[in-house]
Structures are given as C-alpha cells and as structure tokens.
C-alpha cells in the first residue's frame, strides 16, 4: 500500500512524528508538574496548619464541593438550597457549598475516575456498598480525619458513640465521617396489610423464611408470590453470621462463636437450606420462571402499580418507621415483622459516611462543614428537605409535607449528616417520634463481636477478584431457584475453592486473631 509514496515522504513523516512526540512528552511532564503541588499541599496543610493557625483557619472565603449519589431529577432546584445554606455557612465558617449530586448508576465510576485522576474536590459520600470506602482508603483517595475531627468537628465527634467511630478505623485512621442514624438493625419482613388480611396471616408465627410457605400455597394474585433476589448475602445477621469485609466475599463468622472462627458461608447448612428451599419454591411455581432476570427497576415499577410480593424480602433490615416510608412511597399500608434481634455490625455502623478527598484544598473547612451538618438543625434541614414554602410546607415543629412535584426532594436525609436533626415527613412517624425510638435502639442494641474490626483486603485482592467472579456466576442462579442445588451447589463450592477461598479465609482469620490480641 505504501509503495505509492517516496522515501522523502516517509522521512518527513518520521520527523513530524518525532517532533510531535517530543511536544507530547513535554506536555505530559508539565501536566505532572502542575499536579504535584495540588496533591501535596493538602497533606501539608492537614498536618501542620491545624496546630499553628487555628485562629486563621476561616480567614479566607472558600467554596467546598460535595459529591454524593442521588436522583438528580429531584434536585433541579439545588441552586436555591445552596443559596440558603450559604447564608448560614458564610456567617459561621466563611465558606460556601456547591452540591454535586450524581445519578446513582454513574456515581461509583465517576468518583473512581475523579480520585484516580487527582481532580480537586472536597467531600464525597462513601460506604462499603457505594464508592467503596475500603478501596478508597487503601488507594489513598481519602484523607485521614482523626486530627481534623478532634480539632474542627467536636460536635460530630461527640454525637456518634466511640464504638461506632472504632468501626471506621483502618490501621488506626478514620477515613470517613459517620452520618448518624440507625446502626442497630433488626432483620425481618415487610408485608402489605391487604395480604395479611386476605390470607389471614398469623404474623407472630413467622420465625424463619420457611414459615411463609403455607401462605405462598394459598397465593392467587396475578403477581408472583415471590419475585426473587439475593436474600442471603446482604443479611448475614439474619442467618446468625457477621461478614468480614465485603458481604459477598467468602469468610463469615458465627455470631455465637467465642473463638471468632472464619468459615465459608456458602458451605454452611444455612446456605444449603435456602437454595434448596428456593429450588423447591420455583418448582412449585411460587417464583417466576425468569426470576433471575428481574431487576430492581422492574420491581419498583410493579410496586408502583400496587402489586407486591408476599413478602418480597424476608431478610430486610427493618429500621423503625420503615413501614411508614414504604407506605409513603407506594400509598399502601404495610406491616413490619421483625425476626432477629437488633445488632450493630461493622458494615451497618459505617453504612453511610462522608469522606474528605485527598485533593481537597481546604480540609479544615470541610471538617467544620461536616460538624455543622451534624449539629446545626437549620442547615441540615435545608440540605435534607429544601426551603420552606418552596419545596415543602411546614405542618408542625418537626413535621413537613412535600409540595407535589417539588423541585428539591433528595429523599436521602440519611446521607447528609445527623439524621435525627431532620423533619418527619409523615404524621405517623412524628407521632411515634421515630428518631427517639431509633436513638434508643442504637444505644441499647447488642454489638457484633466483630464490631471495630476492619479487614484489609490488599494481601488477597487477586483471590477476591476471582471469588467475586465465581460468586456472580452462581449467585443469581442459586438464589432464585433457577439452578438445581443438587449438582450446582457442589460445583459452586468447588470453583470457590479453586479460586482461593481457603487463602482468603486464612487471611481473614489471621487478621482477626491479631485484632483480638491487640484489644
């Protein structure tokens, strides 16, 4: 093909190529030079500035950016809210806030790219299940907050109990500020009231998921009795376990085991029991043939149309008032049936946090801002519910009603600070004083023996990646009854073993033993 062109052409092309390559190399160098100060500076200021310049900390006006996931369509009027929040922030800490909600589906990836690229921003939502906290901490995306919180966020520090702070610590460092809310979750089921009446369900008799079977047999709605979904992995306490690291990674610990022995949860009787039950349910027609294909979106659409399962999820974390939340969402009465005792676990305690980015230029101000979100009622309520008269109408001191089609209704007040400062959105919740009930539950609940232990996944990350792949190959099939556990369960376990399950379990055990000794 190249024979049409002469030597001269290729010589010139080569020269051009080299010239451009040189320019390219220079510009990457420059870009690096430009980056270095930005990534180094906050580190310096976080270490030295707090001690020496506390008084000067708020001298210069700064703007903080805050990234969090949410339904962006429901926050179109965030400018109004920002303006109101800035009035308070200007006065108290000489700062303004810029809210950056990202759609749920895009959030993880967006944050991953921003952190990996070293982009400058201040605050981000982080948790084990969204914008992975452990990974961000290991990769250096988050700033250690120990000193910052002590110095600039005393209210936040004191509102959350010490044992919960312990749960955030990775190698002694706190990397995320707790959004204070329910941490002691009982697990159980939620059933639409109309079904309880129609099928004459004896709520008190429901102790395990198998107790639902007689009612599935009587089921005669169009909508399937059981929609499918993973009821095992996300609810370790329901089966008497606590997870270590990510919920789906191999290696859980029995709650009643004083030695804290790590076992393979997929090889347990509990898991065998549930997948065998599922298989028999599918054969009996309680579970739809294509349950493995069902998505949360489809489920939400059906729920919106007034069709529910009996019960869709029997191992749902049930916080006080969650039946009221479901009622508010679907306009249908629900009954909460708690099956297990409330328990504080590490993953529950740190289920929602706000971290300060390594690239933040003003980590001190960011910490002060977090402190206000946990102590300033007015500020918190602006963020969580918007502006009175514009986004909601106030009914009483602590009760509001959203204006229909409100242009600011994030509906995720648990993501923004101290939830107990927030408004109630239903009269029932206000009447029951759900916040007080929840706080009482938090204070009185038992803690998992593993609370405060955080697993460092780094030494076995290659095995974890492989195990994760095996999990996603089998979990949907087994946990919807689509795969026959008689031959697929042994196959699953065999593949887990070959992917390094034993190595991961041994590593978890080693770290737990070390942690026990240091306590």
């Amino acid at each position, binding site marked *: *093909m*190249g024979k049409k062109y002469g030597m001269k*052409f290729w010589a*010139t*092309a080569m020269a*051009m*190529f080299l010239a*451009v*390559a040189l320019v*390219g*190399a220079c510009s*990457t160098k420059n870009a*690096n030079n430009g*980056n*270095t100060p930005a*990534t180094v500076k906050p*580190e310096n200021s976080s270490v030295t500035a707090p001690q020496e310049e506390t008084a000067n900390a708020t001298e210069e006006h700064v703007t903080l950016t805050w990234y969090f996931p949410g339904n962006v369509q429901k926050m179109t009027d965030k400018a109004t809210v920002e303006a109101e929040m800035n009035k308070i922030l200007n006065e108290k800490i000489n700062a303004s806030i810029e809210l950056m909600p990202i759609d749920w589906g895009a959030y993880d990836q967006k944050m*991953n790219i921003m*952190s*990996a690229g*070293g982009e400058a921003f201040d605050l981000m939502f982080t948790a084990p299940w969204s914008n*992975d906290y452990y*990974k961000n901490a290991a*990769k*250096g*995306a988050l700033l250690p907050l120990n000193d910052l919180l002590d110095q600039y966020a005393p209210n936040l520090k004191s509102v959350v109990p010490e044992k919960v702070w312990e749960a955030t610590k990775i190698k002694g460092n706190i990397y995320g500020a707790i959004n204070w809310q329910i941490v002691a979750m009982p697990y159980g089921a939620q059933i639409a009231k109309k079904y309880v009446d129609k099928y004459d369900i004896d709520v008190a008799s429901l102790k395990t998921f198998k107790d639902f079977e007689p009612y599935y047999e009587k089921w005669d709605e169009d909508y399937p009795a059981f929609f499918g979904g993973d009821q095992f992995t996300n609810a370790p306490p329901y089966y008497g376990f606590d997870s270590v690291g*990510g919920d789906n990674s191999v290696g859980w610990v029995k709650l009643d085991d004083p030695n804290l022995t790590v076992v393979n949860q997929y090889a347990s009787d509990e898991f065998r029991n549930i997948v065998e039950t599922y298989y028999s349910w599918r054969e009996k027609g309680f579970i*739809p*043939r*294509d349950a*493995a*294909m069902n998505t949360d979106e489809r489920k939400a659409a059906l729920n919106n149309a007034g069709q529910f399962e009996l019960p869709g999820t029997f191992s749902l974390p049930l916080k006080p008032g969650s039946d009221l939340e479901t009622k508010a969402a679907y306009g249908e009465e629900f009954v909460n049936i708690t099956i297990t005792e409330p328990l504080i676990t590490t993953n529950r305690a740190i289920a929602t946090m706000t971290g300060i980015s*390594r690239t933040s230029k003003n980590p001190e101000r960011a910490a002060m801002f977090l402190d206000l979100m946990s102590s300033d009622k007015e500020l918190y309520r602006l963020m969580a519910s918007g502006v009175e008269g514009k986004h909601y109408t106030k009914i009483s001191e602590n009760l509001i009603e959203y204006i229909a089609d409100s242009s600011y209704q994030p509906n995720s007040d648990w993501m923004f600070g101290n939830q107990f400062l927030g408004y109630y959105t239903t009269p029932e919740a206000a009447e029951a004083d759900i916040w007080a009930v929840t706080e009482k539950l938090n204070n009185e609940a038992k803690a998992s023996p593993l609370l405060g232990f955080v697993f460092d996944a780094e030494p076995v*990350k*290659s095995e*974890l*990646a*492989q195990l*994760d*792949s095996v999990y*996603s*190959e*089998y*979990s*949907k*099939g087994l946990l919807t009854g*689509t*795969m026959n556990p008689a031959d697929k369960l042994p196959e699953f376990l065999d*593949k887990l073993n*070959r*992917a390094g399950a034993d190595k991961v379990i041994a590593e978890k055990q080693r770290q737990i033993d070390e942690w026990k000794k240091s306590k």
Partner: protein
Amino acid sequence: MGMTLPGLVYLVLFAYVPMFGLVIAFKNYNYSTGLWNSPWVGFKNFDFLFASQDAWRITYNTLFLNFLFIFFGTIASIGFALLLNEIRIKVLSRFVQSTMLLPHLLSWVIVGYFVYALLTYNGLVNNILGYFGIEAIEWYNSPEYWPAILTITAIWKMLGYNSVIYLASILGISSDYYEAAVIDGAGKMQQIRYITLPLLSPIIIILVLLSIGKIFYADFGLFYNVTRDMGMLYSTTDVIDTYVFRMLRTVGDVGMSSAAGFYQSIVGLILIVTANFVVRKIDREQSLF
C-alpha cells in the same frame, strides 16, 4: 503531507503518548503518591488473569465467538453488497442501505432490550414456538443456544455498515470488465465469480486482517447487554472483557485493569502480525505491511 498531518497528530496523541500509561500495569497505583511514585510490583497485577480457573474458558469464548462473527459477518456483508449492487432503482437502493445502517446506530443497551423482549420466558419467540406446539425454552438459562444468538445479533447490527464498504469497492470496479464479460457470454454468477470477487479480494483481506487484530477484544456492549450478564450463560458467553469488568467492578483496581488491557494488546499484535505473515506467504501483494 499536509493532508496526513491531522491524522498523524491524532495517532501520536491518542495512541503513542498514552502508552506511557502502560507502566500502571506493573505498579500498585496509589492516588496519593501518584503514578510515578507508586511502588513497582512486577507481574503481580497479571496474576488474577492467568491464575484463574476460567482463563481457558474466557480465551476460548473470545476467540471462538469472534471467529464466528468475522466468518459469517464477512460472508453476509459481501453477499448483501452484491445484492445491493443489483438493485437498479436508485431510490430503492438508497432506502435499503439506510434502513440496513440503522441497527449500527443503535446502542447495545437498546438492542439488549430487543433481544430480551424476544427471548424472555413469555416473549415473542416462545409464543411463536407455543403456536407450533413446541415447548417454551428458558433461553436465558440455556447456554448452548447463545453462540448462535450472539452471532445473529452481531451480524444484524454490523451488516449494513460493513456491506456499504464492500458496495463502495464494487461500484469502483470499471464497467469495462463486465461489458467484456457480457460479450464473452458470461452470466451474472460467472461475473461475480470471475470479476467482482477477485477484484474485491484486497479490501476483503484488509478488513479481515483488521478484525483479526481485534479478535482478542470482545465487544463489551454486546456481551454484557445482550446476555444481560446472566451467570447461567457464562459458560458460552463469558469473554475477556466481561470477565475483567466483573472482577474489577468491586475490586476496582486500576493496575489490574491495565494489566488485562496490556495482555489483550500484546496478543492482538501477535495475531495481526501472524495473520499478515500468512497472507504474505500466499500472496505478497495483498499483505498489509
């Protein structure tokens, strides 16, 4: 010279400069210390690919399915281009070309929903089967059908685009050849066999070589959206790209992702050089370089 400059600049900026980034594959990348100061880890990032029990399965699936796409896709595109060339009504020919091009412009996400509507348990295909008294098939639970389903879907989507390229080459063939052939009494099939196909062979070879270079890259959109990421189908549909995505979605390690990309490029390079070598052996003039 001036004409090639934008292309060259593009190539350098987007293909050669980023190659420095390949060092990530050999590092334990830490955001706070930056790319150059992160510690070296040798080949540790590659472990998860080769230590995996699925290494053989994903390699086989990638090569086998891409081979099916290239083989049947090329035949279908050429055949379709030949047919298009025979349409004498210009407006009709244009109309057919445009409609055939339409699937190419659709996102795989949407195509994934089309396929779902057809193949779900209460879907169109099972309804038609039921009409003929055939028992419904749980398509998304039956991996054995999926190489065929994926091939058909891939060809349906790419056909319009690829056949336009072939059609352009066919239109470029001088009509003198055909006139001479008609005088010699050659029929339509003989014209295709002895004039069109031989003159089309350089472009066929180039396109096939280029696709062989990419044979180790699976079209992620196709394999992820059309199979709806169903675990039950992995045995025949899991390819390198989906596997890497699944592993790293939760682990999210930049170093490991780069290692996978690096491995794919190396194998791609080897394959294209080998394929070119084979073509050179057979016919020196036809090879790419």
